[in-house]
């Protein structure tokens, strides 16, 4: 209240004094507004990444001083770890399946569901439902579906006369099984992005093409898809970064098994870095993952920039 009174006195007075007064005030505002987010972000997001880089050059078990400098040995250990290659390969498979199966499926559904004249909000909601579900719950639901004794898969196998393997315990089938779950879980999200993009296309454009006798799928191919390029670029970006941080859904499904064949980069980090408290090793994995993410993000910015230019 006191400050308001002081302001009222200053207001009719000389202009420069008033300005200086306001400047001081805006500094007070900045001191209230900025530190909470900056401190939290620095302490819990930025510093841990710097720590990870530091740890990665030491052999440290988490207690006492960090002294045992080992150079690049941790990186060497990670890169030559027999399961690291599998983890990277699996993460790349997730990217490939997302781009080649999930996004086209999402696009197919989005094209149908973005038609304004069709009132099928129910379907949209249904398709988006798995995305809202916690990964852990989705993983457990599908663990049941795949269960070799009581699940749905063996029953479907029986009806078509095929002996189904215990897919989650099978070194070959476990990856396709996980990919199906990932498609189930995430295609609705990409579909929503595409729908938002498709609905932002001015209807006159489509209408004009239609009056000119352009066929429906030609409109889709030559007008609609090119016009939502930026939505597609964003979808691709989310698919890639999502694949790089896949964790929650793997733990309930397979926990990385059988024989460590279904690890992703983050479950690998959890299994071999966190659970065994190998900070140097875990730090090296973190740094490699960080570099991968930054490369993807920078490449994405370039692509996005090019898309906006054209």
């Amino acid at each position, binding site marked *: 209240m006191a400050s308001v009174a002081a302001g*009222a006195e*200053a207001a009719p007075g000389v202009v420069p004094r008033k300005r200086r007064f*306001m400047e001081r005030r*805006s500094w*007070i*505002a*900045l001191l*209230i*507004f*900025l530190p*909470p*987010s*900056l401190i*939290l*972000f620095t*302490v*819990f*997001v930025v510093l*841990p*990444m710097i*720590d*990870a880089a530091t740890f990665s050059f030491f052999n440290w078990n988490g207690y006492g001083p960090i002294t045992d400098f080992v150079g690049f040995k941790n990186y060497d250990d990670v890169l030559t770890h027999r399961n690291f290659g599998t983890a990277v390969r699996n993460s790349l498979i997730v990217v490939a399946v997302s781009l080649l199966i999930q996004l086209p*499926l999402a696009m*197919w*559904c989005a*094209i*149908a569901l973005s038609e304004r004249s*069709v009132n*099928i909000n129910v*379907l949209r909601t*249904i*398709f*988006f*439902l798995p995305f*809202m579900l916690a990964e*852990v*719950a989705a993983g*457990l*639901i599908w663990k*049941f579906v795949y*269960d070799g*004794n009581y699940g*749905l898969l063996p029953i479907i196998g029986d009806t078509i006369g095929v002996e189904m393997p215990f897919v989650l315990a099978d070194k070959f089938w476990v990856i396709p099984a996980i990919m199906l779950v990932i498609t*189930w879980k995430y295609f609705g999200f990409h579909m929503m*992005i595409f729908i938002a*993009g498709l609905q932002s296309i001015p209807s006159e454009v489509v209408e004009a093409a*239609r009056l000119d006798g352009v066929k429906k799928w030609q409109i889709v191919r030559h007008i609609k898809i090119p016009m939502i390029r930026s939505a597609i670029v964003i979808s691709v970006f989310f698919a890639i*970064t999502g694949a790089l*941080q896949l*964790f*929650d859904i793997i*733990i309930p499904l397979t926990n990385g098994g059988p024989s460590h064949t279904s690890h992703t980069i*983050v479950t690998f*980090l*959890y299994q071999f870095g966190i659970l065994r408290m190998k900070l140097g090793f875990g*730090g090296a994995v*973190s740094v490699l*993952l960080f570099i991968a*993410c930054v490369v993807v*993000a920078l490449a994405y910015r370039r692509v996005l920039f090019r898309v906006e230019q054209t």
Partner: protein
Amino acid sequence: MATAKKRRAPVSPLQWLTLLVVAAFVLVPFYTTALGGFKEIGELRVNPFGFPASWDPVRFVEILGGPRYFSSLWNSFLIAAGTVVLSTLVASMTAFALAHIKFFGSKFILGYLMLGLLFPAATGILPLFIKMRDLGMLDSQWGIVLVQVAFSVSFSVLLFHNFFKELPKELIDAARMDNCGYVRIYWYVTLPLCLPIIATVGVFNFVGSWNSFLLPLIVLNSEAKYTWPLGIMQFQGQFGSDWPRILAFLTLSIMPAIAFFLLAQRYVISGLTGGAVKG
């Protein structure tokens, strides 16, 4: 006339067919999960898709009466609510300062906070664990809240900042002319105007916190503080392949989230796609 009508039909039969197949693909796991809680274990094998022989809710009653269900949901709710309130405040304050107060370095600070969008939070999880241990935040719900707020700062500030920039400048200027300080402008002018974006950011962070697994997994030790994803993993570990019991627990655990989603759908979707598609 017939051809005109035909051309106007926007969705072809083939599309309808695939949509229905996909809908079945999405719904069947939910459907069997919901019914599985009512079935005996042998019944799962012989009668997977039909209705259960009896609608006896014995397992559901047992879970609802047990110690775990409500306490784990309540823990998750407390953490999610704390995260939403704090992150909304913190992020909107920062975004307000960056959007409306001119000062040297504001662009730099925005860029610094946006670094968080470059890499997923899981990347630094191991050093984060050490940091929380050194700060005495292990096994603490407040610890999880603070870290989740830190994780969400980048995206929340981005959404708020985009929104604040669109507000008419005259409004802020008028308030300034009336000798209203920035803190009061923020609280009495800007916040009431940005309820839609608060809802979007809030719902987004709530869902993220409600579903989060990795962070509580490494931070929480005592069972009394377990959030529901931890609780359900523990339940599953304990009952192995007693699927009817696990499915009943699953059904009860995901029901609040599904109900919430159906109510708040609009905000969830605008949060996810709004930030994305504009760019």
